[in-house]
């Protein structure tokens, strides 16, 4: 497998040129003559019954063309995995990002002015903002059937016996905060009536297959009357699923009503107010440990804040329950993960998908264990780490190469971890005004959707008569480089230069549903499908070549733009790729094929939480080095090493880019990012209050790529998008501990947390069940 032509190279991205010249078109860059602009009217209470909606004043505003409420939705007003998300609020409001009405007018300002004139009468209801309170007996009920969205379990061995056997117990509670995806492009969509009495939707939806179904159902139209066109996406990170669908479907309803093109765009404030976040978790960890540093039992409970709607909560928390014990041996496990409805912003998919929260707890616990046993964080991890053939907490035997120790050692070596860790924990360092610290973390991650989802993806490869190639796939490029990776795979299979390949924008009419581009499944699933499609085309070409040149199809090779006869001893070129293409078309053989990638068997028992949860796993380790200002609590990131076994790097530059971006996002989660709500009201609604790492804040980063090819991935490739982000936060907080001797148990490790060990802000969410806001 050593002689790849394109795989593993640093190929420039296939879609970057338009992005450096300003030519690339994002959703808000599309405009049509006579288009109208949409605006929304928000809910005024986080939890209330809607008694009446008066739109008469709004309708009178000159320039207003339509005002819609839930009564005007011709089809389904609900959608979602558990279909309780409302396109327009009907009987109730459940969070302050609910939209009660939408307006279309000749310009944005007029539309907003009219929306502000809509009068809604409410009957206020008790609200709940804390998921644990929401699960209590007398809590206000947000959806029929109660506030528990889901309860996942894992049961293995006998925890009581395990604790009995233990020499000591470590018990800690951790809290993680909700965070915003902060994709730099806010949601936008342009919808217009097309010539086939249907509608075309241009937008930035991450899962456009889902959007397609939601929009058609809302408009009351068959799927073939709604066409979705995916614009270039300005980032998503899991965030442009339901959030972007909501923007697009509201525009579609207005376009249907007015018969005109409608542009709906979110300002940053709209985007943060409406969109779903990463789940906040409360985590209770109890470990029974032995003197030798091994773990006899783990009992874990986690409660996730699902917010107003279910969204992806059942899947997100499922990943948490599978991975809650980390990549460590433990014979006795009892884990319970709950998600509950509250009147906060709903929470859903975000890069990491249920792992950053548990990883923070696990990796903090591991460092506590090291401290108790008196060994280094590296040694304690090596003592407990999974090896080849290990059995996970869910009873899955790992049959791939388990490279956890390899990545841990590489991370420690690349950062001089052991020496620095010893130096920084000295009194001499810790009593300095600016003590330094170094922290280690590691994790394993199930690849793709796992046993909870139906997992398949498809792609189409079309070799045109002149030998140029177009590829379409259902996997979306949100900036992560999926298109480039898939194009490289096709180029490798066909033995032609990357420049010959053109990627078509995803279009709902062109490729079969490939499921969502989530769970870091772009390469392994989309790339896998592209590889099969390209191989299918190559088969057609081989058969023609065999006839034309009287050679055995088994001996044909495709390299350097040529077709070769590799008969074992020698190689000779038969013709160019173009010549063979022409020969195929001349014989009436169109070069068009699709490929569908299905995954290996997974299975799961809901009651015991036992089963083969994922068909393969990836392993990574992070080291953060920080400097803490002991006067202010300010933490500065100095250096960061991030090591990932990606199976195989199809494109080294893209993999490194995913790692750097993941580190910045994960470290930001560790030390500054927080979506703050008070009584359900979003307080951090733009970048002046919601901080992400800037060019001044990021550390010097080193990405180390480890390659242990996996039989399930195209050319052995697995994934990196989410692994890159999911373990950075505990590396940072473990480094802060190394510097200060104080453990951060509540994220983020911002100034007050590091300096005072607590947050100064009054924690309103836990203090009150009832919410009182003066009627507006």
């Amino acid at each position, binding site marked *: 497998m050593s002689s790849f032509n394109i795989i593993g190279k*640093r190929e*420039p*991205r296939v879609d*970057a*040129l*338009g*992005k*450096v*010249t*300003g*030519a*690339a*078109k*994002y959703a*808000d*860059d599309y*405009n049509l003559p006579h288009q109208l602009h949409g605006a929304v009217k928000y809910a005024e209470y986080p939890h209330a019954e809607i008694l009446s909606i008066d739109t008469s004043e709004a309708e009178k505003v000159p320039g207003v063309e339509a005002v819609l409420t839930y009564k005007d939705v011709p089809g389904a007003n609900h959608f979602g995995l558990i279909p309780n998300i409302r396109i327009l609020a009907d009987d109730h409001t459940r969070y302050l990002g609910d939209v009660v009405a939408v307006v279309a007018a000749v310009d944005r*300002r007029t539309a907003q002015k009219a929306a502000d004139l809509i009068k809604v009468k409410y009957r206020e209801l008790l609200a709940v903002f804390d998921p644990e309170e929401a699960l209590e007996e007398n809590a206000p009920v947000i959806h029929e059937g109660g506030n528990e969205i889901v309860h996942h379990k894992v049961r293995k061995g006998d925890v009581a016996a395990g604790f009995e056997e233990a020499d000591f117990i470590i018990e800690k509670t951790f809290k993680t905060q909700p965070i915003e*995806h*902060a*994709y*730099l*492009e*806010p949601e936008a969509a342009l919808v217009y009536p097309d010539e086939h009495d249907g509608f075309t939707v241009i937008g930035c939806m991450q899962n456009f297959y889902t959007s397609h179904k939601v929009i058609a159902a809302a408009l009351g139209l068959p799927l073939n009357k709604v066409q979705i066109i995916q614009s*270039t*996406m*300005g*980032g998503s*990170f899991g965030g442009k699923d339901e959030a972007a669908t909501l923007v697009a479907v509201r525009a579609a309803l207005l376009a249907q009503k007015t018969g005109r093109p409608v542009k709906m765009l979110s*300002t*940053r404030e709209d985007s943060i107010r409406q969109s779903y976040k990463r789940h906040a978790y409360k985590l209770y960890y109890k470990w029974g440990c032995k003197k030798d540093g091994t773990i006899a039992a783990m009992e874990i409970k986690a409660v996730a804040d699902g917010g107003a709607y279910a969204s992806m909560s059942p899947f997100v928390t499922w990943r948490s329950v599978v991975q809650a014990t980390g990549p460590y041996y433990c014979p006795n496990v009892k884990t319970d993960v709950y998600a509950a409805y509250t009147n906060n912003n709903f929470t859903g998919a975000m890069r990491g998908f249920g792992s950053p929260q548990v990883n923070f707890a696990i990796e903090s616990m591991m460092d506590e264990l090291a401290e108790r046993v008196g060994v280094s964080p590296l040694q304690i991890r090596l003592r407990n780490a999974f090896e080849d053939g290990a059995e996970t907490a869910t009873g899955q035997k790992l049959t791939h190469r388990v490279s956890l120790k390899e990545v841990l050692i590489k991370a420690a070596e690349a950062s001089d971890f052991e020496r620095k860790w010893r130096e920084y924990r000295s009194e001499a360092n810790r009593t300095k005004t600016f003590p330094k610290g170094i922290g280690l973390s590691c994790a394993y991650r199930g690849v793709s959707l796992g046993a909870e989802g139906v997992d398949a993806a498809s792609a189409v490869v079309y070799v045109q008569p002149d030998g140029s190639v177009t590829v379409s796939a259902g996997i979306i490029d*949100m*900036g*992560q*480089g999926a298109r480039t990776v898939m194009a490289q795979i096709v180029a490798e299979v066909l033995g032609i230069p990357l420049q010959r390949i053109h990627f078509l924008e995803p279009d709902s009419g062109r490729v079969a549903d490939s499921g969502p581009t989530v769970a870091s499944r772009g390469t392994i699933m989309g790339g896998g499908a592209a590889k099969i499609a390209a191989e299918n085309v190559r088969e057609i070409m081989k058969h023609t070549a065999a006839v034309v040149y009287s050679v055995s199809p088994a001996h044909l090779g495709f390299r350097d733009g040529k077709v070769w006869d590799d008969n074992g001893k020698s190689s000779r070129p038969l013709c160019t790729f173009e010549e063979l293409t022409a020969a195929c078309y001349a014989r009436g053989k169109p070069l068009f094929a699709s490929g569908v990638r299905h995954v290996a068997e997974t299975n799961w028992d809901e009651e015991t939480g036992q089963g083969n949860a994922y068909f393969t796993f990836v392993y990574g380790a992070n080291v953060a080095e920080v400097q803490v200002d002991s006067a202010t609590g300010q933490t500065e990131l100095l250096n960061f090493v991030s090591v990932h076994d990606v199976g195989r790097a199809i494109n080294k*530059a*893209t993999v*490194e*880019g995913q*790692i*750097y*971006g*993941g*580190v*910045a*996002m994960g470290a930001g989660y560790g030390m500054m990012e927080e979506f703050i709500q008070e009584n359900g009201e979003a307080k951090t609604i*733009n*970048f*002046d209050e919601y901080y*992400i*790492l*800037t*060019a*001044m804040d*990021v550390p010097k*980063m080193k990405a180390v790529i480890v390659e242990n090819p996996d039989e399930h991935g195209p050319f052995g490739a697995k994934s990196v998008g989410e692994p890159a982000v999911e373990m950075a936060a505990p590396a940072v907080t473990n480094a802060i501990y190394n510097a200060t001797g104080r453990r951060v148990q509540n994220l983020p490790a911002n100034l007050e947390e590091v300096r005072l060990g607590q947050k100064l802000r009054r924690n309103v969410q836990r203090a009150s069940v009832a919410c009182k806001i003066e009627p507006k």
Partner: protein
Amino acid sequence: MITVSLTINKKEYTCEIDPQTTLLELLREHLGLTGTKRGCEIGECGACTVIMDGLTVNSCLVPAFQADGSDITTIEGIASNGKLHPVQEAFLEYDAVHCGFCTPGMVLSAVNLLDNNPQPSQEDIRRALAGNLCRCTGYQQIFDAVQAASKKMKSKR
């Protein structure tokens, strides 16, 4: 309605606009120059960065009438005669472009930096890009690209 005349990418424009219009809206919505991006509209993200009379500004904060008589460069004016600027080339080469939404602003900040400081240190680069948020790249490949562009431009001089 007021009248604003200005030079954008070496072309003269005269527009009739609502006095509330920002320079960002003028560029995107009136002139169709959509390469300049809208990310926050409060001057925090830098996606709307343009060069105005030799300085980088957040066009979302500049009332369009203030740009009357000024000379503006947007991302559409950085390549000349179909040839990419060395900064643009370096962004491609170093994989500094992921989703690309921050890229126009980043490129303009970088071009402006190199115009004023042809051999910037790492620290200079970080400071020059401090007002441009990027959620995708972690900035590393952008720093590398700017450094490489600076070397390339030096060897050409």
